[in-house]
């Protein structure tokens, strides 16, 4: 895991001191609210519906136990004893007081964390595959690349006043778990098909929000050494050509769309050719120094199977059920990665109490080389657990209310905070997630349905990624009431696709029934082994349309 060097430490401490001064100057009247607002936003402080909100960066979703314990402490001392893990692999506190934020930032700096660039029109926290360094289908760990981008983009003087916010995601695996196609820049680490050299495929212009778009490939293969210069070329074209007259048309996806992919690519390549690569790209020694922080931990040499694990499975059906769903195969024999679901049946997606954070921190320290991950699906991961330790970990998770067996299933729902917290929201998200979760809470039923990703947003800004949900739900206001649109067929993976609207909006209380009917159509129509999203892609929306409102299906209509 990356550790701050002297420069990182000084940079973060200086920023805390600056923000403390900015709050004081705002109070004294030396700064107007118009002057102060962008400063607080660039330090992750929003004003939400009920209170301020503080968004803390978790770079590429990687944390150690000391950091998670510090987050638990902040939650307890300065918030209401819980935090909310987000689709950006970050953590948000919902109730901090502005006057306490400088002290909170000091506590974060103590554990090499901060809130810099978690808001504002700048390059945001870089996200990555939460199974980085673990997955067998991985070409290379995406975190050294992500860390390089973090360092390059932090307070980059040229890119601190972009037309709009800018999000970058990195995956090193064939199966995309980082939703790179939904980002302003998506990066996939791959091997050159002819030479076998490891490099990058660069995608640009993905994004959700009110104008969702899937990113396009601007470079099929970029040598690793050229990464920062190529990113700088993209950012320069965007910074110069991106629209600043209309915030709804200011993201790079609109620029790529309006320019056309080929002219955009030509502009980037021309800029790249002009740049002095060696002065922009990372020094190879520095890149190697960063990569060394992500060297694999000291795994033991173990057999691929473990008798105590098998015995525990046989003795405890609940443990076996959880293990069947929440484990992910580790590339190292004798180890597994496990997902700690933050989606208890009927609970608030992504929320964890300070007590739960401490439990997870202890488990990470004792059983997972002091490392854990935050996923963009709003869960946590212990990345390197010995098979022989899994039962003990599971028992601790059960005691903490963290052993819900639903990873990737219909109750593993992404939901933004929605109108329960967010000042921008047009409708609530969390109660919709809760009602669906309760309806489909049965483990057996969830397994029968199989992989199904429901993603819910409480406004068109799409923080809940509804456009790429197998079932997407968007909360809007319609005639003074909360109303929910349902889309089907979205996909956040390497087969990225945007969901298609199924029909007019329905009331919140009608959503669980509608999902029930949609799932029933799938169960009736699927071929053996076919996932929900694949069935939707094969069948189209036709068979599902009557399910939205419960209109008579063709068979019923024929019977009459």
């Amino acid at each position, binding site marked *: 895991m990356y550790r701050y060097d002297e420069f990182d430490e000084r940079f973060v401490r200086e920023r805390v001191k600056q923000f403390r001064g900015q709050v004081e100057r705002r109070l004294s009247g030396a700064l107007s609210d118009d002057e102060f607002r962008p400063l607080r936003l660039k330090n992750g402080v929003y004003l939400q*519906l009920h209170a301020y909100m503080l968004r803390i960066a978790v770079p590429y979703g990687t944390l150690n136990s000391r950091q998670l314990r510090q987050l638990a402490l902040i939650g307890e001392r300065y918030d209401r004893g819980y935090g909310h893990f987000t689709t950006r692999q970050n953590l948000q506190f919902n109730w901090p007081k502005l006057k306490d934020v400088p002290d909170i930032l000091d506590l974060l700096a103590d554990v090499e964390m901060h809130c810099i660039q978690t808001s504002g029109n700048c390059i945001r926290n870089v996200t990555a595959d939460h199974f980085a360094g673990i997955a067998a289908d991985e070409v290379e760990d995406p975190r050294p690349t992500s860390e390089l981008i973090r360092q390059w983009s932090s307070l980059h003087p040229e890119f601190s006043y972009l037309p709009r916010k800018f999000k970058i995601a990195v995956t090193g695996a064939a199966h995309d778990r980082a939703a790179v196609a939904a980002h302003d820049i998506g990066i996939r680490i791959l091997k050159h098909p002819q030479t076998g050299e490891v490099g990058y495929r660069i995608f640009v212009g993905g994004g959700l929000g009110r104008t969702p778009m899937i990113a396009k490939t601007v470079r099929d293969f970029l040598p690793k050494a050229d990464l920062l210069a190529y990113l700088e070329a993209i950012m320069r074209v965007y910074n110069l050509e991106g629209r600043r007259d209309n915030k709804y048309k200011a993201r790079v996806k609109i620029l790529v769309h309006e320019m056309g992919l080929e002219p955009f690519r030509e502009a980037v390549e021309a800029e790249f050719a002009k740049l002095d690569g060696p002065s922009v790209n990372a020094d190879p020694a520095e890149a190697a120094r960063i990569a060394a922080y992500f060297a694999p931990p000291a795994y033991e040499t173990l057999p691929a199977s473990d008798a105590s694990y098998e015995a525990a499975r046989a003795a405890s059906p609940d443990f076996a059920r959880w293990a069947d769903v929440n484990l992910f195969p580790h590339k190292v024999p004798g180890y597994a990665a496990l997902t700690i679901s933050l989606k208890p049946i009927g609970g608030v997606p992504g929320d964890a109490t300070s007590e739960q954070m401490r439990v997870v921190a202890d488990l990470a320290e004792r059983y997972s080389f002091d490392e854990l991950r935050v996923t963009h699906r709003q869960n946590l991961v212990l990345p390197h657990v010995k098979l022989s330790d899994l039962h003990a970990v599971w028992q601790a998770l059960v005691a903490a209310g963290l052993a819900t067996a639903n990873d990737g299933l219909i109750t593993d729902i992404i939901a933004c905070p929605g*109108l*329960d917290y967010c000042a921008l929201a047009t409708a609530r998200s969390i109660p919709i997630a*809760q009602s669906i979760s309760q309806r489909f809470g049965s483990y057996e039923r969830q397994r029968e349905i199989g992989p199904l990703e429901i993603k819910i947003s409480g406004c068109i800004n799409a923080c809940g990624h509804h456009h790429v949900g197998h079932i997407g739900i968007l909360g809007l206001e319609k005639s003074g009431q909360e109303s929910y649109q349902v889309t089907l067929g979205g996909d956040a993976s390497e087969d990225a696709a945007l969901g298609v609207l199924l029909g007019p909006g329905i009331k919140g209380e009608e959503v669980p029934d509608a999902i029930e009917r949609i799932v029933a159509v799938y169960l009736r129509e699927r071929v053996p082994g076919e996932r929900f999203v694949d069935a939707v892609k094969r069948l189209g929306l036709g068979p599902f349309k009557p399910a939205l409102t419960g209109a008579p299906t063709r068979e019923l209509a024929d019977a009459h």
Partner: protein
Amino acid sequence: MAAAPKRPPLPAILIANTFLEGEVVFRAAGGWTPDPAQALVASDEAGAEALEREAAAGFARNEVVDAYLVDVAIGTDGVPVPRHFRERFKTLGPSVRPDLGKQAELRRS
């Protein structure tokens, strides 16, 4: 400060967040209060203008941010209740956490 939002239909109350703490407050006769039952209700143009002046003054004094008028219905108990669901949530707290926000404080009192 951003341009004042369009005035809503009357009757209306003035809602805001305190600058230093972010807490939701309402303009009452004697100042800002966390209790919506104490909120001054503007029933006519003059009352609305008076509340708007309070919004500007409170902002200028660094007492509050994001102050704006909210149209309300007056309940049988005389307590003003926002007509729009967004402002009702703001008045109460998160609907999924009845233990937090004003709904919890008022329940305890």
